[in-house]
Every structure is written in C-alpha cells, then in structure tokens.
C-alpha cells in the first residue's frame, strides 16, 4: 500500500507562469509527470490488474467465479470481512480521539519540546511492527504484567490476549502516528489569531475548541481518519498475533491462502474484495460527510449543505476545501 498525502491546503500555490517562456515549454510540462506515471503504472496499476485477473482464475487457469462465491457463501469469511471494516473504522475513531489532544499539545509546545514530542510519536516506527506486536502479546498474556497488576490489586486474571480488544489496542498503537502527524500539520499552519480573538471575545476554552480549533483542524483529522482506516484495515501481523479466532481479519485469511494453502486465486479475490470494501467505505464517508462539518454547531443536528448530500457541496465559505488524501491501496 502506498499513500500519497495531499499537500496542506495553504501550501504549494502556483504562481503565474514565468514571463518570456512560450507555450511550447508549457506544452511539454507533462514530460515531468512521466517518471511518476511510470512508477505508478508499473508498481501499482499492473499488479492490481494482475490481481484482478488472478481472482477470476481457478488452479487450472480456467475462468471462474468460484473464488468469489466461496468468499461470499461462507458465513465465516463474511464475518471476517465485516470485522475487518469494523475494526478499521473503530481504530480510526479511537485514534482521532486519542490523537487530537496529543497533536494539539505538539503543535502548541515550544520548538524544542515539539521536536522531542514529535520524535516520541515517530520513534516507534523505527522498531518493526512485528516486534511491537510481540510486545503486546507479552503484556497482555495471562501471566503478563497487566494481569499480575490486576492480581495484586485483588482481581482475578482475565483473558486479554486473543480478544477483539487486544487487536484494537495493537492496531491503535501502530496507527496513532498516522493520525497525529497530519493534525499537527494543520494546527501548525492555522492562524492562531482567531483563537486569540475568540478568547478576547470571552469564549470559554470548550467553545474555542469545538467551534474554532477542531473545525480548522478537520482537514488534518480527515486525512488521519483515511490513513488509519486504510492502514488498520490492511492489518495482518496484529490480528494474527493478538486476535486468535475471534479477532481474525482479512489480512490473516489472505496471508494463509498465499503462504500456507497456495490458494492464489482465492487470495486475489479476497484482496479485490478488501480493496473494493475500503474504497466504497471511503466514498460513502465522503458522501455522508459532504458539507456537514461546516454547518455544524454544538447542540445542533448536522444538516447537509444545501439540504442534500453529495460530492460538490464540500466547500464552506471561509474555509479552504479540505484535503482528503487520495489513496492507492
């Protein structure tokens, strides 16, 4: 999976074309896109096409719908697919709730502290996700530190490992930086004079947060939500090591199909379904959310801009169009 993050809304405005360069040069500007285009086609589009092809083939190479019917006729696979989308959404929301205060603290702190905090957020990426997930396995184990803590306080040990909660904890831990960093970006580029003026008008901090800071940070939050949703939905190590039977996600199914059962057509079909599911979920999110944030006030129900949902109604006066990251899965 690779993800292209859109530039922050205020950066990268193109100036007028330099004087004295004729239209000839401008006509060849597309040449500059060529390397990137090649990259995307060779490394993303072609494998995707192959995967779609493979998903319609059986072992002997004949065209079949069997991989898909197998996926959709088995209640187990259906449950795994819904669970995958559900966990991805839940992880995105939990990350938003946990990540916003952290991002706010980073954005508002003095430069030296900010560097330290940012390093703190990024540094887990230095350690492989596998090692971090292993650590959770140790922490959550029946004889692990969490359970001994519970026992010393007087509770009976509980099963933490191989539960949905364990998967969510692991995925949130892995995904949090993807939520924090985009929010820090938006908060750092916002005009804090509006906060000062809100304060000078006597607004309490809750009002400043809900009506000024959060709405301005929304583009960053949305980028974070999309990134975390896509990342968590593709999770494989975490559900494998922490989920057991109850927390299995589609990534585990796909990995097993490829590495253990040599069932590539089925793995491809599951991959196509997962990609489609993520894209549909994101489209649905955009459609449902279109314009609703901008008209939102605490205590007032959301109203779709212009009274209807839809794609174009996103821009609200006074706010630049939010930049949701386009994602290639």
């Amino acid at each position, binding site marked *: 999976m690779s993800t292209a993050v859109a530039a922050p809304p205020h950066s990268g405005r193109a100036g007028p074309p330099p004087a004295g360069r004729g239209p000839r040069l401008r006509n060849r500007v597309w040449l500059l896109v060529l390397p990137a285009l090649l990259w995307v086609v060779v490394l993303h589009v072609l494998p995707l096409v192959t995967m779609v092809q493979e998903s319609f083939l059986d072992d002997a190479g004949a065209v079949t719908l069997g991989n898909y019917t*197998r996926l959709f006729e088995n209640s187990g*696979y259906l449950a795994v697919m819904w669970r995958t989308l559900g966990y991805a959404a839940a992880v995105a929301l939990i990350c938003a709730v946990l990540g916003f205060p952290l991002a706010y603290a980073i954005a508002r702190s003095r430069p030296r502290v900010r560097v330290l905090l940012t390093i703190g957020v990024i540094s887990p990426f230095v350690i492989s996700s596998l090692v971090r997930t292993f650590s959770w396995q140790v922490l959550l184990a*029946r004889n692990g530190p969490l359970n001994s803590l519970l026992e010393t306080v007087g509770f009976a040990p509980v099963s933490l490992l191989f539960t949905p909660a364990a998967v969510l904890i692991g995925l949130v831990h892995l995904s949090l930086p993807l939520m924090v960093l985009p929010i820090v970006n938006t908060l750092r580029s916002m005009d804090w004079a509006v906060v000062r003026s809100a304060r000078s008008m006597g607004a309490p901090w809750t009002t400043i947060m809900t009506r000024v800071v959060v709405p301005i940070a929304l583009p960053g939050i949305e980028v974070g939500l999309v990134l975390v949703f896509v990342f968590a939905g593709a999770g494989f190590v975490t559900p494998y090591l922490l989920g057991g*039977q109850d927390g299995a996600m589609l990534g585990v199914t796909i990995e097993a199909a490829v590495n253990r*059962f040599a069932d590539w057509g089925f793995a491809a079909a599951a991959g196509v379904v997962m990609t489609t599911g993520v894209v549909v979920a994101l489209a649905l999110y955009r459609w449902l959310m279109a314009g609703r944030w901008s008209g939102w006030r605490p205590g007032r129900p959301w109203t779709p801009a212009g009274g209807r949902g839809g794609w174009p109604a996103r821009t609200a006066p006074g706010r630049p169009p939010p930049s949701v990251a386009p994602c290639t899965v």
Partner: protein
Amino acid sequence: MTTHSPWDRPLTRRSALTLFSAAGAALTLSACAGGPRSTGAGAGPAASTAGGGEVVYAGYGGSYNDAVAQAYFEPVSAQLGVDVRVVDGAFDIPRIISAVRSGTAEFDIVDVSDHDYGQLVNAGVLEELDPGVVDAGGIADSAFVPRDLLVTAHGLSSYLFSKNVMWNTEVADSMNSWADVWDVQRYPGKRGFHNYPQMLLETALLADGVPVAQIYPLDVDRAFAALDRIKPHAVFLGTSQLENLVAQGEIVAGNLTLGRVKALMESGLPVRYSWNQAVTESNRLVVLKGARNRDAAMAVVAATLQPDRQVALTELTGYSPTLTAAWDQLDAAALADLSGSPRTAGEALFLDYQWWADNGEATTARFQDWLAG
C-alpha cells in the same frame, strides 16, 4: 539440543517480515555462508559417479539447518567431493511448487516433512529416487511404522518426530490422551494447535475416541465435528508462535512439536508431555524435478542414509533415526525418549502421507474455510 525445530511452518517471523517489507525475493537471493564446502580433497570412490559440482539444499531453517549441515553434509561433502550449499531460512511449499512448474527452482534437495510431502508428490514436482543410487535396504519396519510408509518412490524417511500430548502442570498433573486435551471442563485454559490440517484432523479423531488402527481413511466430517468442539477454546498458529505462548503460560495444552516442548522443559517451564497417542511423521530428503544437479543430488541423498550420520543428527536434534543399524547404536536411555522407538511406540499414530496426497487439496480448502468460520 535444538530450539528451532525443522517443521516451523511457513507463517513464521521470516515470512511475516517478508510480507511486510515486500522483499519476497530475499529468501532465494540470500546465499548462505554457513554451508559446508568441501575442497574436493579426500573424495571417495563415489565422487566419480556424483560428478562433483554444487548441490543446493533447503531445510526448515534455524538451528535445524546447522544441525543437518554438521551431521550430514560435512561428511557427505568430504566423501563425494560435492559442495552442498544450505540455503538460509525456511522454504515455502507453495513457492517451491510454482518455481518447479515455471522451471526456476533454486534448490536441488528439499528436506520435507510428511505433512508437506503428500502435497509435493501430488503436485508432481519431485524426481523419483533412482534405486540404483539410493539404497533403501537399511530401513526396516519400525516399531509401529510399516516400511511402505518410510520407503516411497520419491523420498525415504531420514528421521521420525512427533507431536505429543502436551500440558502445563499448573492446570493438570497429568494428561494422557487427546481426549484429555479436549476436556476443557476438567482442565480449563487456552488450547494451541498448529495451523494446518495434516495431523490435526488425526488428532481430533483420536480425541473423539477413534482407535489408532481405524484413523485412515480419515472420517473428515467427524474430525471437523470434533474440531468444532475445541475451536472456541483454541488458537491455531505457527510453531514459533505456539512455543512463545506455551512459554508465557497462555496456552496450557495442545500439540506443540516435541522438540520445542523439550526445549521449554529444559528452560525450567512447567510443561510435560506424554507418549500415548503421539502423532508421528518423518522427514525426507527429496530431489526436485528440474534440479540443476540431479545426479549429484541423488548421490547426496544416498550418502546421508548412513547409520553414523543419522545418529549424529539424533544427538544434535533429538529426532529418531530410520535405519535399523542406527537404532542399534542407541542406548536404552535414548530409546526411552525418542519418537517411534519400541519403548515409546505404544498407541502412537504414523501420518499417512498417501491419504493427504490423494485428499489433501479438498481437505485443506475445507480446513481453510473452517478456520475462518
């Protein structure tokens, strides 16, 4: 003593890392430096028939590869004048099959367990062993394994090993059967099993009360019904994962490979195993179709089948030999704790790779679906 058993299934840390870093080619590209390289000096009479050159061997990785290099390939290289290169890490059965079919196999010899052997036979990717080169004469009926299962067209068993009833002594003083492992009322706690169907369906049938002699042909429906009962209390994972979780006390009973159980016991953990209903299989050195050095590979396979070399491997790994002459070299103390010896055979089961070769594909697909459900 080994802590890494050869049958570490494909889903290991390595394959997980491979998946994540998308460095799929790493396995085959990483040439190993650890393999014994003969200088060619001291080549015996067999050297001329082998023709020299290099043979590439793939095993299940880890310290097992080191043990095989030491016990087998150092003396074999010296004898034949053939370099045996031991590939780093473990192999994946699916990759081997597709590599042989596309004519790009990187290995000549693969050290495969019976539960995978059936799949390779079925896929038609193995050379038949040349009886003129590879002599199976030294292998007789073992305590409970008919010779027919040890001596087969594409591979001869080079050693035996088992998955025994295993438990944590904090939940049970003693477990003596798979039915005990299935009894979650009496012995509460998480169960752990490997994540492939071979041997697991047999285990489930034993738990359900099927006598060893009537296990094959497998009653697949009955096996899955028995698995259904244990599923809410169980996890199905790769060997390394199971070992970690047994060590942490998370898994209190199940079917971890015996070598791992012994390693855990040696490190002082409260686990024990029983010999009753041990589910046993063997490993075979097989030659891939399209092997670049086919003749030398056959010669190497033949040369590993010598009592001294088998005993050396047994001493390094704790796995049982298959040659009668090798059994004869072991003392009573060793026999008392080796899979497939007359002392431990009791009610042990031996995996019928042929059943899995014939029915493996459908059964595996069903297991795959069952695991998701």
